[in-house]
Structure formats: C-alpha cells, structure tokens
C-alpha cells in the first residue's frame, strides 16, 4: 500500500484515535504501552513499514523511561517514529520481536542499557555488557559512573 505521510497520519487518527505529528516524511506517534504491539503490527501490515531503523529508549528522569522505535516504508519513504512513555518506575514493555526480527538485538541492548524487560521476548539476555557488570544500567540517568573523566 502506498501512502503519503499525511494520509498515513489520517489513517492512524482514524484507527487509533491518536494525533500524530507529521514532519516531512516522518510521522511521530505517541502511544500508550498497551497499543505498542498492535500499532507495530499496524505499521508493518497497513503502512508497509517493513524496515526497522532502530529501537531504543530515553530516560526522562522523574517521568520514567520512554521507548522509541523508528520504522520505515522504503518504497514510499514514509517513516514512523513510535514512542511510548512507560511511566515512572515502570520497566516493562511489550516486545516487537514478532513484528520485526531486528527488534531482537535492539531490545536486548535496551535491556542492557536501561534495565527494561520486554514481555514476550524469546531470548532476553545481555548483549553488550559483560556478565560481570554490576554497576547497573549505564544509560539510566541515575547511573553513577566510576568518576573517570575521559579527557583533560
């Protein structure tokens, strides 16, 4: 299906009742956590976003962690940025592995870096950090590093 970004935004509005933000070819969609996997399937099947750019997270301190995922339809150029705020102290998010195979490693990386648990992930274990890492998830804002300054 070939859709222009504006048409894709309309379809998202009708189907999910969300107001997306359109910026050039990028459609940014703020989602509730429960909508996350359903919207993923919708983006893949209906919007044709087969290509997975990346999946990661942002720690907004008191507001909690936000998971972001950028996918793209290479034929039409429509890109969708899915975002969901998990809420303060919340560390569970549904998985997208069954929608995009590439989410496997990216969710494992987010598990490593943010301590997030992706429900339904078939193989959630450390990817980049060593098994002996004990300082906690390094990309969380409450992470206290060793104090080493990499420059003078």
């Amino acid at each position: 299906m070939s859709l222009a970004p504006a048409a894709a935004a309309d379809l998202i509005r009708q189907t999910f009742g969300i107001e997306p933000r359109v910026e050039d070819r990028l459609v940014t969609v703020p989602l509730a956590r429960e909508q996350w996997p359903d919207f993923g399937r919708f983006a893949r099947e209906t919007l044709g976003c087969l290509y997975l750019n990346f999946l990661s997270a942002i720690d907004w301190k008191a507001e909690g962690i936000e998971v972001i995922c950028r996918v793209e339809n290479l034929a039409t150029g429509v890109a969708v940025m899915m975002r969901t705020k998990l809420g303060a102290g919340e560390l569970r998010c549904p998985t997208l592995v069954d929608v995009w195979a590439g989410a496997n490693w990216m969710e494992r990386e987010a598990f490593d870096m943010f301590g997030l648990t992706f429900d339904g992930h078939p193989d959630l274990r450390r990817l980049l950090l060593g098994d002996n890492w004990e300082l906690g998830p390094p990309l969380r804002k409450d992470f206290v590093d060793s104090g080493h300054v990499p420059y003078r």
Partner: protein
Amino acid sequence: MAVARTTVEVGYGGGERLMMNMGPQHPSSHGVFRAILTLEGETVVAVDAVIGYLHRCHEKLGETLTYVQYPTIASKTDYVAAMTSELAYVLAVEKIAKFEVPKRARYLRVIAAELQRIASHCLWLGTWCMDMGGALGGGATVFLYTIREREDVLDLFESLTGARLLYGFHQVGGTRYDIPPGWDAKVRATLDHIEQRLHEYEAMLEDNAFFLVRTQGVGTISQTLAQEVGVSGPLARGSGLQWDLRKAEPYSSYEDFEFRIPVETAGDCFARYRVRMVEFRESIKIVRDALAGLPDGPISSRPGVKSVGQVRVPKGEGYSRVEGARGEVGCYIVADGSPKPYRMKWRGASFSNLAVLPHILPGCKVADVVAIMGSIDPVFGEVDR
C-alpha cells in the same frame, strides 16, 4: 601411560551435534566476535552470536562530551570508515540547531565520504579474499593488492587531516581542514590507479572457479528478511532493495552529483561483492565530479569553534543518517539546551547487518560461515559501540 581424553564422535550421517566456538579470537571475524555454532557434521544448525567485546558505551560518552568534543570520538565507532560516523553526528547536531553549512564544506564532506568508501571497500575486499584463503591462489594476494590501494587513500587523508585512521575532519558547521595545495592532483592520480586496478581484481576473482563456488548461492538474504532486520547498505542492495540514502534522502549536496545505485537481486555473497565493485567506480566518479566542481568560499559557518559550550544547540531532537560504506549510519540526538546531548543513540550499520547472521547461517557449511561473515563486512567498533 595412556592419556585420558574425551572424544566426540561426529556422525556424518547426522544425529550427533557438536558445539563449536568460533572466536572470540578468530582471524576471519575482523574483530572480536564469538559465534557459538551448533553443528551436525559439517552443517550449521544453530548459531548464537556473542558481541560486546569492544563495547565502550559511546552513547554514554556522547552524553558526557560536548557537541564540540564528540565528533573526534565519533570516528572511533567505525574506525575503518571514520569519516562517515563523524559526518552522521555533526549532521544531527546541525539539523537540531539549524546551522548553515557552506557549500565548499558540503563538497569537502562528499569527497571525504567517498574516498572513505573506497578505502573501506579496499579493506573489505582484501580481508574477505584472504579469509577464503587458499582457494584464491595463495589467499593473501588480493589482500596485499587492496591494502596497497587503501594505503594510497590513507596517504591522501594524512595530507588532508594529519591522521591516517581517526580524522576529526568534521566539526559542527563545516569541516576543520581545507584541502592543501596540490591535493586534488594527487587525488586524481590515486583514483586513476585504483580504477585501473579494479579490473585486475575482477579478472583475478571472477575467472576463479573456486571463488564463484564459494560465493554464489551462499548466505542468501531475502528482501523481506533484510528489511525487517534493518539490513542496509551493500547487503540490502545485494538483496534487491533499491535503497541508498544518498539518493533517497540526499544530504551534504549529494543531489548535485550523478551516480548510479547498483542493485543485485540474488542476495548471496557474490551479489554483495558485485554491488561493492560497482560502488567503487561510482565513488571514484563522485570524487572526480566534486573536485571539478569544488566551489570557493569558507569551509565552516562556525570557524574557530574550539572551546566547550561555543556550540549552542537549542532544545529539540533529530535523527540524521548517512550512507556509510556499510549502510545506514544514524545518530539520534535529544538536546536539552545544554552544551551536551541529553541522549544520543547510535544506529550502527554493522550492528543491524550482523544481526542477520543467526537467520542465514543455519543450513550452511562451516567453511561458508567465513565467506558469509566477510561478505557482511562488519566492523566491531560499530557493532559494539
């Protein structure tokens, strides 16, 4: 006295399984990478890829270094093609802060990026052929030739930036160095040499029956699999995807240049090889055109920016990506108005390309693993970041 040994019976008729560690120190992985292969005879039935040996947490480093400091560090993610990751970072910052980049700087960036692609592909071709070893008439032959060419390109970078591997060429707002006198003539001479020699490599390889047997029909990636794993660059184009960011989303004046995007449909190692061989020539063409049309003018809209905090970036966020030698190298930055990013995410091309490995290895022979790994061309600095 008899020495007690545990023996593993490998039944070639199948049935018995053997776990084999390939790596972390294996010459064919071009870095520190461990593949735990489950074998049935010579056939791979399962693979667990272990990465992270080179993890330096670049995303955390990005949060602790300012916009002025980080570009030189960015080159350390993909150290084989350092120019591209620097470019991805500065483009993201310029996008958020809406900095102008002078036309001359944009052309210089194109020249650097394309020379870097040539240098990177030289290393890929040589090491890949060496991995496949004895079958190619001594194995190291092609490697020595391509390293010779790569050295020529690194010499050019050395006279441009003073460094051979990690350049610090890009800075927010432009480039740090202008080309020295006589450099363009040297570039043209080097490109002429390389272009001439590409025919030699092709003749050496494509007339070699062993090379064809080891690459054709091996490690096939389907178009759908490539997309849903996020495979980009020559791998995606080898699988029939007409997808190149230089055309799809032109940055840094790529729209000014005429070039072709090679696409192969087979999706195997040989298709990826063909794509890269054409890319060599297209890059040579782009560099020549860029040198011929290099405009005069300043090389940076923010010259002399050296100290911390001189680059003011307002609140905002942006994702910028470039077509590196290995595919989509992206940088996603969340800026909070301070001199450092609030969050920086690297999208490494090698990371996503390597993630396809567990999908395509089962069913291959052990020897094919080496050919497939080489054709993916991962750089572990970028995989692990």
